[in-house]
């Protein structure tokens, strides 16, 4: 299946003019500031545009069409109600700077969302403004820096990250002007506490950690870890990428974390949209409350208003032009209200059940789990090092062949410390039948790897394109279309 570029549907003089303002007028722009020639935008009819983009959509895998077990991404079902009610005309037509008196409904929603997120994380305060996980991380580390600056402890600029950490962790630390120190993970999946003890000191600003970790196991010595970091004067940062695993079971605040970001587009089921928008709300413990990014919704008797720099003079400040990705926050709110307190606990229960079931079945089928002696959390790792060694079929080959079988591939080659790995996260919204079908596909592919390895190495065979040449893409840059 192939779809031409929209520009190739274009013909001079064609238009979708039902969308134009009715009366054409000349723009009164001074000659020196006027655009000389029009931009290259398509000239198509409305039907041509609709058909083109609908066809493009059909070239995608998505949750609505495929099992999508992408590890650490929490690709769960996005209930349709969340979209429907977040797009009520009053919400989507509201200007963010309209007076608060005209936005009491939406402010109440956001205030209740802050309160629910405090409850599920065990943190004292929440700000909803960060626009994605990485911006939430930025806010978190910036708050840690602001905290030490306020204490005039200028030496604390080092952030410790485990070697299994997501790439945004070290990248964020750098953006905040911190240096990064990596510490190793033990063969059993826990963090090497001796290395941690050796790493901390008067330069330690904090540690960035996700628990369960990116290798899909719960850090059992979290109490000791917290003690080591806090005793050294550092703070604990919780990367909420894996919050789905522990919702209602254990709270980051109770584990002793000082700051957390949540990916509402993972745990709270707002759509990933083919790469965003996300939302990276942050929560903090008592001592970081003054530094939260603004604006935050405050409640005074029965009125709601935005708290800003005047209310929080020590805030790290603003991260966006307005108040973050409000539309995403509305979707998260609706989802949380539909789950309720019991439904939220079921999320982690069934996400973990699905993950452990899938792990158990794959293990019985002969696949090697990276941490077989550990209980899987909401995700787990299969290492295909034997398959790569014996038959020359690596993790990427398995991933691409899975696409032919109608499954989106798991996360590949992450975390970096496990060779030839697939990080598999089924989420709670998948049925047993779907998981069984995935296992069947993995078994069939493994058989192909042994008998017809070219079927994997050449995969995918049945998608709109076959395997793409990434090296060529980077060397012979073709980033925009040009008319022939």
């Amino acid at each position, binding site marked *: 299946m192939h779809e031409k570029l929209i520009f190739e549907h274009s013909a001079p003089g064609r238009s979708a003019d039902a969308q134009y303002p009715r009366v054409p007028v000349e723009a*009164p722009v001074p000659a020196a500031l006027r*655009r000389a020639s029009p931009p*290259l935008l398509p000239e198509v009819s409305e039907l041509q545009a609709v058909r083109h983009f609908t066809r493009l959509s059909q070239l995608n895998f998505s949750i609505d069409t495929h099992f999508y077990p992408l590890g650490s991404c929490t690709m769960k079902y996005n209930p349709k109600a969340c979209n429907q009610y977040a797009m009520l005309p009053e919400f989507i037509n509201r200007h963010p700077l309209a007076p608060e008196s005209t936005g009491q409904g939406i402010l109440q929603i956001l205030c209740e969302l802050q309160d629910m997120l405090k409850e599920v994380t065990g943190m004292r305060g929440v700000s909803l403004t960060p626009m994605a996980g990485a911006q939430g991380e930025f806010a978190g580390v910036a708050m840690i820096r602001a905290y030490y600056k306020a204490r005039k402890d200028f030496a604390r600029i080092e952030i410790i990250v485990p070697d299994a950490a997501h790439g945004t962790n070290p990248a964020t630390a750098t953006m905040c002007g911190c240096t990064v120190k990596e510490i190793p993970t033990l063969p059993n999946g826990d963090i090497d506490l001796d290395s941690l003890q050796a790493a901390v000191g008067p330069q330690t600003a904090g540690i960035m950690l996700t628990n369960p970790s990116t290798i899909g196991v719960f850090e059992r010595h979290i109490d000791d870890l917290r003690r080591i970091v806090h005793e050294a004067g550092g703070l604990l940062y919780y990367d909420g990428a894996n919050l789905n695993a522990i919702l209602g079971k254990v709270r980051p605040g109770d584990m002793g974390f000082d700051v957390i970001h949540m990916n509402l587009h993972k745990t709270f089921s707002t759509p990933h*949209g083919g790469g965003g928008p996300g939302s990276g709300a942050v929560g903090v413990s008592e001592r970081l409350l003054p530094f939260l990014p603004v604006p935050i919704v405050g409640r005074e008797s029965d009125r709601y208003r935005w708290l800003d720099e005047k209310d929080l003079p020590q805030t790290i400040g603003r991260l966006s032009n307005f108040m973050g990705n409000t539309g995403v926050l509305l979707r998260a709110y609706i989802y949380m209200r539909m*789950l*309720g307190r019991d439904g939220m606990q079921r999320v982690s229960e069934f996400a973990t059940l699905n993950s452990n079931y899938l792990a158990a079945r794959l293990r019985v089928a002969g696949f090697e789990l990276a941490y077989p002696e550990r209980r899987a959390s909401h995700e787990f790792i299969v290492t295909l090092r034997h398959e790569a060694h014996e038959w020359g079929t690596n993790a990427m080959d398995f991933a691409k062949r899975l696409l032919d079988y109608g499954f989106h591939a798991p996360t590949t080659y992450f975390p970096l410390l496990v060779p030839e790995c697939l990080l598999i996260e089924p989420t709670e919204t998948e049925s047993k039948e779907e998981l069984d079908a995935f296992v069947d596909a993995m078994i069939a592919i493994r058989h192909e790897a042994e008998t017809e390895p070219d079927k994997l190495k050449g995969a995918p065979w049945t998608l709109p394109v076959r395997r793409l040449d990434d090296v060529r893409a980077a060397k012979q840059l073709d980033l925009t279309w040009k008319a022939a």
Partner: protein
Amino acid sequence: MPFIPHTEDDIRTMLEAIGAPDIDALFEEIPANLRAPGLPGVPPALNEMEVGRLMADFATRDGRPLNFIGAGAYEHHIPSAVWSIVTRGEFYSAYTPYQAEASQGTLQLLYEYQTMMASLTALDISNASLYDGASGLAEACLMAVRANRKSKSQRILLPVALNPTYRDVVQVIAGNQNIAFELLPYDQKGGQTLVSALDQYTGQDITAVALQQPNFFGTLEDVDAATDWAHANNALMIGVVNPTSLAVLKPPGQWGKLGADIAIGDGQPLGVPLSSGGPYFGFMATRKEHVRQMPGRIIGRTLDLDGKSGFTLTLQAREQHIRRAKATSNICTNQGLLVTAATIYMSLLGAKGLAQVAATSMQRTQQLVDALTRVPGVRLAFDRPRFHEAVLLLDRPVKPVLESLARRGIIGGADISARFPSLGAALLVCATETRTLADIDTYAQALTETMRNSAAAA
């Protein structure tokens, strides 16, 4: 169980396969002293009908007032086709297109988007989006520091007439990296940035100069002179632009003799509703030679094993998942779905439609200014040519006037007095093509009455 498909039989079979007595046993590695007793602070579940009613009640409370605010977010007509396609599950519920072969729809769309944005800004290349315009400017400043190898100073000049929140956000995001921001004043009569203020920096090491076109007041800037000054002084030029305006205004790539080096802005006007503040998206375009310094996702066209053309994420060696602490930015998830909306919007409007939206918005704002400045106690702040916003000066504090208008169902503009104290009581207003002459008349009458009543009360 909402959104969980398991039957009792399923649960039993699955636990047997795992070898666990019950679901709770799956959490045995969590130390007992840390286990939460549940979430009593979260309300009980609602079904879809109940949550629908709840949301409708909230929405009704907020109503649908008539809006005359811009200030960085603009109410334009959005064709029905845009969000009808955007919310298709295949776009809405897909992830970042890491598995290129299973994401050709998203990838091809982003390639088309990059082409449209490069052309709209008259620069070589565009990335696939940033979070919003404000954080996009912060990324542009960080990029300029990396890209301008002739400069060692990390000094960047920003205009006072830049959206003040953009300046706040830039300080927060880039502030931890030892970049010094210095301010260029504006002309109190015309509202444009004083290009002559650049003279005091001539011969100094300046990393970059940013200019917003149109600026926060809606005034058109002398972008050519500023760009030429920047290049004569080995500084990079950053253009902060409104995408709608680019259909009629000289694009950044053609500013001055050489063109701006980086263009950024908020893409919200291109088919994204006001949405109470977001999600919007930031766009960024630049020259070819700076591509490896650009933050964010970039899509390239390449060939597959059969020699057929296809699309993939490229230049990933810049990004956090490869470069970790040395990445160009920590950005990962961006604003893909909003870019989907913008691409469909630009396809439907085309160059001609977008130019008409821009021209009609300029005309409507002029009509709004004419009508409101006839109201006693209201005058225009700046006399220079503008795009689709204007600053009005009132003879009394703005906030009570806006509250009074809000009670009449009119959102009368943004009160910018606190951010620009030298202006006095200043109100930033905007009318796009979505406001009719009748709307403008309604506003003018309401303002007349409000001003009369509050004068009477005073």
